[in-house]
């Protein structure tokens, strides 16, 4: 590689008395650095797949969708947990999409400049609050509130839908979904705001010059232009909600049965793993690794979609923030 080195050598090195590397060696070190990362990822994927393999070779693929989890009866169906994961995430996103979008629009276009800076920083700081703190807050502060006020209220107003049958327990799908909503909100607002902020200024001003009202500008110019990036932000938030472990495990009530109501205790794939990992062995442990693999596949799928959508939408300016908080 030294032959391709066109830079002057020797003299400069001696003058500064400093360590230097030829271009080839430098390049090689960079490749090693990136290679180590790639190797770690490969090791990670191999480990999970390898440990999950026994359960798949023993039970095939259909066991994933069996409705019963009972290790004593040798039943390891993951359906309740897949449903729980989807349901909690759905509750979170139903709340987070409109509220996050409204907040991002306000932050990007409506609030005064000074407020924008303060709130913008606050949102990014909040994205860093550890999830276990949200979990602790949820189980101590929100669960009694949900049991005494929120769930009775929702039952009286929306009980006819059949979604709110059963006793008010506080912990359950609804609280887990709410906590997830609060958790993903800062991430979602931060990325959505970055996406909205890079809508070309001329288009916004052009629409205003044509006499459009502020809402018309937002709806007909800003939102269509930012559509792909916003979808990416929502998908990214979905991915975070799907994989959240401790906060959900603390507030979902951890039941191994399919929930029959939004107030029912339930469990998600991550909460199943974390609650049973300590005592599991043999086939049950393999089943938990299998659950991990299912979670990995869902997570990678959702995140690939999100990244493709967000890619190139925030550009270099927003990229740093989005990467940091995501």
């Amino acid at each position, binding site marked *: 590689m030294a032959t391709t*080195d066109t830079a002057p050598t020797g003299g400069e090195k001696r003058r500064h008395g400093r360590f230097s590397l030829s271009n080839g060696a430098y390049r090689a070190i960079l490749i090693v650095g990136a290679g180590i990362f790639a190797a770690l990822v490969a090791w*990670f994927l191999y480990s999970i797949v390898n440990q999950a393999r026994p359960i798949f070779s023993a039970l095939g693929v259909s066991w994933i969708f069996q409705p019963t989890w009972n290790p004593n009866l040798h039943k390891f169906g993951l359906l309740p947990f897949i449903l729980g994961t989807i349901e909690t995430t759905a509750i979170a996103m139903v709340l987070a999409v409109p509220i996050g979008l409204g907040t991002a629009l306000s932050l990007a276009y409506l609030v005064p400049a000074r407020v924008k800076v303060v709130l913008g920083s606050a949102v990014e700081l909040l994205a*860093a609050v550890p999830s276990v703190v949200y979990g602790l807050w949820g189980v101590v502060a929100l669960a009694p509130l949900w049991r005494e006020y929120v769930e009775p209220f929702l039952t009286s107003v929306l009980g006819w839908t059949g979604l709110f049958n059963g006793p008010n327990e506080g912990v359950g799908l609804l609280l887990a979904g709410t906590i997830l909503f609060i958790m993903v909100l800062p991430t979602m607002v931060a990325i959505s705001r970055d996406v909205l902020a890079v809508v070309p200024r001329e288009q916004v001003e052009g629409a205003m010059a044509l006499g459009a009202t502020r809402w018309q500008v937002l709806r007909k110019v800003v939102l269509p232009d930012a559509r792909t990036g916003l979808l990416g932000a929502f998908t990214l938030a979905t991915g975070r909600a799907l994989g959240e472990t401790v906060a959900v495990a603390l507030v979902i009530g951890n039941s191994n049965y399919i929930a029959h109501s939004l107030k029912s205790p339930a469990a998600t794939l991550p909460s199943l793993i974390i609650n049973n990992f300590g005592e599991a062995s043999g086939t049950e442990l393999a089943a938990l690794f299998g659950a*991990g693999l299912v979670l990995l596949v869902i997570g990678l799928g959702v995140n690939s979609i*999100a990244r493709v959508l967000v890619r190139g939408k925030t550009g270099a300016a927003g990229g740093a923030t989005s990467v940091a908080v995501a």
Partner: protein
Amino acid sequence: MSVLTFDPSGDPILERRRQIQSIAQASLGRRKASSAVALGICWVFLVLAIIPLVAVIVYTFAKGIVAWNATFFTQVTKPEGIPDGGVANALVGTVIIGAVATAVTIPLGLLGGLFLAESDGRVAAGIRFTADLMTGVPSILMGIFGYIALVKAFGYSGLIGAFAIGMIMLPIIMRACETAIRGVPGHLNEAGLALGARRFMIARRVILPAALPGIITGVLLAIARGVGETAPLLFTIFGNQYMQWNPTKPMDALPLVIYNNSSQPYPDLLQIAWGAALLLMAMVLVLSIGSRIVAARLQRERR
């Protein structure tokens, strides 16, 4: 000469403009009303978003500050019923695990970031996409990975916790470094090349100093994310109610104390959990705010 006469009433363009204006005028009231309603909803959503986020901070502060006393910081965690428990062992564990993870991931992340910033090939694109995906992989899977790959062979230890946390931090640092390095103006790089400097020299003396604010921000944010993670630690460091400075042994950590105590019915354990939550949140916020201050100061010095 009839060509020169101009009859505005018959001009189709003006006619069309007048039409549009009258339509716009007629709908102005309705459009203004719907705009007011929609923007009002946006404002309501902004407030709705702020309430829970402020509530979690205020609540944690109010509950946690009560727990902060001398024994909280100097004593180790005690089981229920034994007074004067603290979180000293967990604080030491979190700091050591965070420090080890940071020390290992910074050089790797820097190399990876430089590689990504200086390469545009298909391999680099693949690694970039992989790094993006890895930042979104559920953190519990890193714990399972640490368990399968290392705990089974070496037993529980703080180092494996640092490994799992490092796996979460590495892609974040790589991408942040890449973004920061790509933000350095290309002419600096070209000036270095024109002076006959080697690429290593340019990277060390020109590009890295110029990209430093962005790199520091990224690293501090990655640390903030890393030390707050609970799930990876549950599978790797096991927890330890005694003071343990040796990272090759099972350790305790603040997120673990919070998680374990939060499902306890005992008020004193719960109070420790709140104190630990406030401590952890304060650490994370200091790192996040610190990263902004550092970045802003370095940016200003450069001007």
